[in-house]
């Protein structure tokens, strides 16, 4: 164990001292910090005239949102909302956005307004608790019936829908919404995948290119513990980079919007979804998937470079897969392929795509949604790739130099 720890330390040192690690890392870090700062930069202009900075806007929305947090979205709140919004009804935003009435009496309900518009888009004078939740039910039914899923799957989602308690409780949860959107965990996954493609493709390949493999492979632990030490070191470096970006993302979001609303129902922001989940639960699930996907991508890249005997080849495959998962959509008619396509890291981490996909993976009476299945699937693939890699690595022959 002690020898393994020593080998691991040296392997981490080798990876972290390589230019192909620290150059992309610092570039990503600068880019990521810049992106994080941009959401507080800039300002809102109305007909060319300054209205407020983004930072001011977010501060006001947070203050208003927190005042409403914990209130049920029922007739009482909806009546207050209607009364407030009636004051600017029929007017153009340019006419009322600067007014004191809007700022003091209408704007405090903007959080409720965005939920209503997101769920149904029904007219202001028709909004009641009854019309709101009926409209939502109709949207949920429509989505379920038109998702191309089986009767068994429809029954599953109907059951999930029945578990939801209405009226929903309003929660200000901007941080968590940001983190589960494409600007949060998804973006971290995308950037770390680029890092992995460049950095991890050299972990094994560099030993061959710089001809150190001969020394390693003829040494006592060169074909056994060294392989595992390299894999674990690659995973470790990947996790460190992932957690740094993750920490920055979390810190940025909490600084801007606070950490409130962890238990907010996802239906407040994604009205037609039937999963009984809070935004916090989704964030945790996405974080687990992020970590596993980064580990899997890292191991896959390392093993692929050993299999192809080329770091460029492995890098190309990983990058093409990244782009393909963003650009290619497999028709739902090809169910198995398209469902597994949705399990690719950048697809499953898309809230409105893979993560909330209504198609299930069933084992007898056990039904798993995509996000429930993927962690097990990734762990299985991880074990498979590690075993395959060990075989490839151990069979390496030093020849033709």
């Amino acid at each position: 164990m002690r020898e393994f720890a020593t080998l691991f330390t040296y392997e981490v040192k080798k990876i972290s001292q390589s230019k192909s690690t620290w150059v992309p890392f610092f570039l990503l870090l600068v880019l990521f910090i810049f992106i994080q700062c941009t959401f507080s930069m800039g300002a809102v202009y109305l007909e060319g005239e300054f209205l407020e900075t983004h930072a001011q806007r977010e501060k006001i929305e947070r203050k208003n949102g927190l005042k409403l947090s914990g209130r049920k979205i029922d007739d009482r709140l909806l009546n207050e909302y209607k009364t407030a919004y009636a004051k600017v009804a029929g007017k153009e935003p340019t006419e009322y956005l600067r007014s004191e009435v809007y700022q003091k009496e209408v704007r405090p309900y903007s959080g409720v307004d965005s939920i209503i518009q997101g769920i149904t888009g029904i007219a202001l004078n028709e909004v009641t608790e009854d019309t709101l939740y009926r409209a939502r039910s109709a949207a949920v039914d429509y989505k379920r019936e038109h998702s191309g899923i089986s009767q068994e799957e429809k029954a599953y989602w109907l059951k999930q829908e029945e578990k939801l308690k209405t009226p929903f409780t309003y929660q200000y949860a901007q941080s968590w919404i940001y983190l589960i959107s494409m600007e949060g965990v998804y973006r971290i996954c995308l950037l770390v995948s680029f890092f992995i493609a460049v950095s991890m493709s050299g972990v094994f390949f560099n030993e061959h290119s710089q001809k150190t493999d001969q020394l390693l492979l003829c040494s006592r632990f060169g074909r056994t513990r060294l392989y595992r030490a390299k894999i674990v070191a690659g995973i470790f470096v990947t996790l460190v980079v992932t957690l740094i970006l993750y920490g920055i993302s979390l810190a940025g979001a909490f600084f801007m919007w606070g950490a409130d609303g962890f238990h907010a129902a996802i239906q407040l922001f994604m009205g037609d979804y039937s999963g009984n989940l809070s935004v916090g639960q989704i964030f945790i699930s996405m974080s687990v998937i992020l970590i596993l996907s980064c580990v899997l991508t890292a191991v896959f890249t390392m093993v692929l470079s050993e299999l192809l005997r080329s770091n460029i080849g492995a890098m190309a495959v990983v990058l093409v897969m990244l782009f393909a998962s963003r650009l290619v959509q497999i028709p739902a008619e090809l169910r198995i392929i398209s469902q597994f396509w949705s399990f690719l890291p950048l697809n499953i981490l898309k809230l409105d795509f893979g993560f909330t996909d209504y198609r299930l993976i069933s084992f007898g009476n056990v039904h798993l949604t995509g996000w429930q299945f993927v962690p097990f699937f990734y762990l299985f693939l991880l074990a498979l790739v590690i075993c395959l890699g060990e075989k490839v690595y151990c069979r390496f022959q030093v020849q033709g130099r």
Partner: protein
Amino acid sequence: MELIVDRLTKRYKNKLVVDRLSLHFKEGVYGLLGANGAGKTTFMRMICGILTPSEGSVTFDGLDVTQEEYRAVLGYLPQDFGYYPHFTGRDFLLYLAALKGLKKQQAVRRTEELLELVSLTGAAEKKIRTYSGGMKQRLGIAQALLNDPKILVLDEPTTGLDPKERVKFRNLIERLGKDSIVIFSTHIVSDIEHIADKILMMREGKIVFSGTKEEVEGDLEEFYLETFSEEIS
């Protein structure tokens, strides 16, 4: 202590690089001579287990070349190999010591001994990328000796060494040959002449001469030139 090479063969498509070599090695220094392409490096790689033979076997006291226990008693200096440019000389040796299974204290002690032996103590904390060719070669020799190997395979070890270092290194090999099996290849006939207990000459994958210096009639260099006259001309 016996290293047995039994009908060792390496074939690439239609080309026979090593042709059914059968040899028994005991403690001592074995000098391997041969022109470029004779199969020396391929033969040595197979002894070190980094190249799988097409046929035949290599065993040391019953241990197969593929076993971890075999690798534990092996030291190898390849002809052309690389370093980690960002590592210091000391780090490089400590890393390889861990790979060879040395305990930490033992690794530190052995590293210091070997740095001293190859006159690199003063440069031990310098990055390897700043080393000269000769310093790198000495570091390579040191790494091969880390685990006090019973089988020491040295592929052209004196390349890059200055005359003084070569003499020092020859003396070292001679000493090591008393307790270990040392197989070393070289183009420099005088190196072999001074220290090899047994001389092996290789041509087209076969051993064309195997014997002691005394068994060579006359001057070794002339004998070598005579043996390889076709290839040299």
